[in-house]
Every structure is written in structure tokens, then in C-alpha cells.
């Protein structure tokens, strides 16, 4: 008999309500993993088992889905995760040097490593579909364009000091309200669009 669970009770309830949104209940597995990852930061085996139980699916099946997709994390990640595009269009514009610069800026040696303060990690990712702004990256649910070493420093600095991070909170989507949440609790949109470039 289970005494403690890693996912909160209200989250389990939310997950149980997901299957009704789809023609077949299995489609709820990824939105459910989203919710779990959002709460814990990454997907632990226990979390995946609880998701499976809530959806009446096999735990191995849920883990099979989670391991297939790159946006599900099975290891701890930094509070701010830099997704650095290094596919061809960005590499032609200097993406590899920027990754190297980012490593120094956040103090890690390799992709996936979390900085000592727990604030940062990064990964190199494939094309994110913003090639006209290469080199680019995604961090905290937003794209950042025309990257330079200075811009990377700026992105890191404004996440280190809460004061400097103030402009972020006016973004239409603050990092604490990811879009994965259900349609009912969507964040208010700011009147202007395209805040992609911080």
C-alpha cells in the first residue's frame, strides 16, 4: 500500500481528467507527463509510475513514451534550461562557438550538467524552426534570436539576478505558467505579440 506519492494529489486529479479530452484515453499520456515534469522539474521513475497508474496504463509503456521524446527529461535539469540549436543553419552562423561560450558563462563542462547553484543547464538541440534568426536558442519557453556572446551573457545575467530578470515577468507567459497547463487556466496575453526576443 502506497503511503507517499511524489506527485501532488491535485495533480493526480488533473491527470485523471485528461483522457476525457481525447477520442481515445491513451492520447493523454504526453500531456500528463508534461504536468508531472512541470511539477517535479524532471521525470523520476516513481513519477512515471504514478502517471501510469492515474491513466491506467502500464508503467513500462509510459516510460517508453517518455524516453522517446527529447522534451521529456529523465535527469535533473537547471531551473533555466538553454536549448541551443546547433543544426546547420545555426552552425553556419557560429552556434558552436556560442555553446562553448555558454558553458563558460553558466559554469558547466558538458551538456546536461547542472550548474552548482542549480540555476542552469543546457543541451544542444536540433533545428527549432527559426532559421532566419540564426543562431538562436530557446530558454524558459521563449526563443531568443541573433545570438552573440554578449546576448548569451545577458540571458544568463538576467536569470541570475532577480532584479535584472524583471522584464521577463512582463512576458505573455511567465516561466511559472507554462503553456502545457490546461486551456482553462491560460495566462493573460499581453497586448503586444512577439516577445520572443528578450
Amino acid at each position: 500500500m502506497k503511503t507517499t506519492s511524489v506527485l501532488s494529489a491535485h495533480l493526480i486529479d488533473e491527470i485523471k481528467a485528461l483522457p476525457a479530452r481525447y477520442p481515445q484515453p491513451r492520447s493523454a499520456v504526453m500531456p500528463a507527463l508534461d504536468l508531472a515534469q512541470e511539477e517535479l522539474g524532471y521525470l523520476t521513475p516513481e513519477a512515471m509510475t504514478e502517471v501510469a497508474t492515474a491513466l491506467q496504463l502500464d508503467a513500462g509503456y509510459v516510460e517508453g513514451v517518455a524516453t522517446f521524446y527529447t522534451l521529456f527529461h529523465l535527469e535533473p535539469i537547471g531551473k533555466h534550461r538553454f536549448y541551443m540549436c546547433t543544426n546547420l543553419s545555426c552552425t553556419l552562423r557560429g552556434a558552436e562557438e556560442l555553446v562553448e561560450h555558454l558553458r563558460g558563462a553558466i559554469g558547466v563542462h558538458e551538456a546536461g550538467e547542472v550548474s552548482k547553484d542549480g540555476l542552469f543547464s543546457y543541451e544542444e538541440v536540433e533545428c527549432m524552426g527559426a532559421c532566419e534568426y540564426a543562431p538562436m536558442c530557446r530558454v524558459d519557453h521563449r526563443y531568443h534570436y541573433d545570438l552573440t556572446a554578449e546576448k548569451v551573457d545577458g540571458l544568463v545575467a538576467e536569470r541570475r539576478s532577480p532584479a535584472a530578470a524583471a522584464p521577463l515577468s512582463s512576458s505573455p507567459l511567465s516561466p511559472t505558467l507554462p503553456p502545457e497547463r490546461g486551456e482553462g487556466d491560460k495566462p493573460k496575453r499581453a497586448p503586444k505579440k512577439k516577445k520572443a526576443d528578450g
Partner: protein
Amino acid sequence: MAEQRGTVGGPVLTEWFAKADLHTLDVYESLGGYSALRKVVTTMTAQQVIDEVKISGLRGRGGADFPTAMKWSFVPKDHPGPKYIVVNADESEPGSAKDRYLMENSPHALIEGAAIASFAIGGHQAWIYIRGEYDLPYEMLRDAIAEAHAKGYLGDHPFGSDHALDVRLYRGHGAYICGEETALLESLEGKRAQPRSRPPFPAVKGAWGLPTAVNNVETLSTVPWIIRHGGAEYASRGTEKAKGTRMVTVSGDVQKPGNYEIEIGVTYRDIIEGLAGGMLSGRDLKVFWPGGSSAKVLPASMIDTSTDLDGLKALGTMGGSGGIIVMDDSHCVVKAAARLLRFYAHESCGKCTPCRVGGNWAVRTYDRILANEGSQLELGILERVSDGLQNGRCLCGLGDAAGWVIESTMRHFHDEYEDHCLRHTCNVGKALAHA
């Protein structure tokens, strides 16, 4: 705030893009938006919609280039239960950003197009499968769908008719393979995204086992214009067989990277030197990918090639998803190919052996070559692996695409491969050192 980089005020897709707040229903409607959906649900039959799109000659813009009206007509008309339109918004072909550009500028055009397509196949629900990294387009579509529902343009009685229409969103989670339509359907069903064996085709057995037409964002965003202006007007643009306009994304070593709306039939010179402003100063064009990283490369000498889709096929390459990656003479073709092979090996879903194994063989071979450990043997391995990846040995085209990168770069730039493998030098590096 990111500025638009690309065509605003073009002939079809980008017609209204100069208008501020086009993403809101009010602005979109004030320009004529949703008049096509109104016309369709209040005055047309499903067959009339299909016929109009057939006249337009519209072909799928996701890369496969399949006639849209024909795809819709494959969905059985007499099927009693639900049928679905699934929108492929999982744009992830390297070099392609045009679907993002369309959704960020005009989300309502996609919603209107998806609703019209649902009507045309006799369905009531469209699902937009959007890649997980597209946060902003997702939010814009979510808000736009809510607006359309609030106005009663989607719902049980759109424009007072009795044909219920709904558009819903589903987020992907990072897998290039989801751009392949049957893998996308697997993912939408909550599974690992591995392509299905066909037949049955999605038109018969698609999403959740039901008849489905999968259409690309750009394809559906074009449909409202075709209904407003007539298929013949659309077909008056383009070439004899490849009709209309399309989006291309130009990226890489050009002055003005961007998403441009072109009339099909202009040349790559028109795009690279004209729209994209030519090469970065002091450099020359070396090679370009004419339609995403999966399209076989063309060397600089072929810059006058037409964007005519059939002409590109005749050359053995393709217009694909429209992602034009431009590389100048300061970059090494072998290194570029090695980077792309890392991509294809990483994104292989693992289902078919030639793709799963071949991609990794190629990566290991390129690694040896770039570590100056190459020889005649490595050239031979690349040729064999490239052949093994191609020619329909797998369920989908991912493996073929990986093979095309190897084959086409080796064909046009064999001297660079020989420099690396036989002489352990990179003459591109030397040229740069002198610069």
C-alpha cells in the same frame, strides 16, 4: 521584440502580413478573414470545396507535394463515424521555419483553412499537432481558437449552419520523425512516434483508427484564399503543373535570411541574390540545399535552377519543405554533411534497420574522417552506407534523406572528401587562413 523577416504583403499567403495585430480575430475578419469559411458552410457542398481546390492545383507544402484535393477525396464519404483533419505543425526540417512564420503572423488563416478542410472531408474536428518548442505559435493558436469559438465561427452551428466544426491543439515533444504523417498519428495517439506500415493509408485508417487527412500548415493556410478568389485565380500563378505561390525559408550565409513568399517557377538566383540580398560580403556561394536538409544539394553552378517542383524532381532533388540553406566558400562541405548525418542518426526512430544502423555507421565514419583518420576505405563505406539508406528500404523517408546528404555532397564535392580522406587536409580551412 523580434521583427518579421520575410515577405509581408505578398500575393497569397502573406497578403495581410503588414497589418498590425493580424493575429486577432477582429483585424483578420476586417480584411476578409472567415468569409471563406462562411461561404463554405452556408453555400457550398463538400464536393464543391474539393472541386475548387482541385482547380487551384494546390499541392501539399509539407514536402511530399501531393495534390491536396486528391488527398481529401480519398477520405471515404460514406464513413459513418468521425473523420479527422490532422494539421502537421511539427515543422522540424532543418532550414525550414515558414510554418512558424505563418502561424505567428496569421493563426486564424490556419484555423479557417483547417475548418474548411474538415467540412470538405465531411468531418467535424481538426487536430493541430504542433511541435513542443513552438510556445508562442501554440499560445497564439490557442487564443485564436478561443476567439473563433466565442464568435460562433467554430462550434455546433458555425455561421448558423448545422455542420459542427472544432479545431483542437496537441503538442509534440521533440521528435523530427513526427513530421512523417503516420509517425505523427502514432504520437497523437500517445505512442512512440514510429511510422506505420502502409496500407492502410491514413485516409482509410488514420488518427485513432479513423479516416484522416493530414495536411501541412502552409497548405491549409492557402485554402481560405483559394475559396475567396477561386481556384482558377490561384492556378494562374506558378508553372504549368506546379501552381501558385509558396513559402521558402532562406537561411545560412546570406545578407537577409527570411521567409519569402515566391511564385513557383522563379529561380534560386532570384531568391538567394534577390530576396535574400546575396551572400555575406566578400564570399561566394558554394552550395545550397534547395528544399530543407533532406533535399539533395545543388552546387553554386546550378543557382539558375527553377523552383518548379517537377523540374527539381527531374534533377533528382526536391522543393521539399522550402527550407533553402545557403553555404558559402568559407565552410567545409564534409563538416556540414557530418553535422547533418548526426541529425539524421539522432532522429532515427529505430524501427527500420537500414536507417537505425546506417545513420550511425555514417556518423562514425565521418568522425574518423574529421579526426584525420580517413582513407580510401572511408570513402567506400560512405558510398555503401549511402546506398543502403536509400531506395525505399525503410517505412519512411528519413533514411533516404540521410543517404541523399551523403550521396549528393560526395557527387558534387568529391575533391573535398578526397582532401579529407586521402590527404588529411581541409582546403577550406586553408583558404580561410589566408583570408
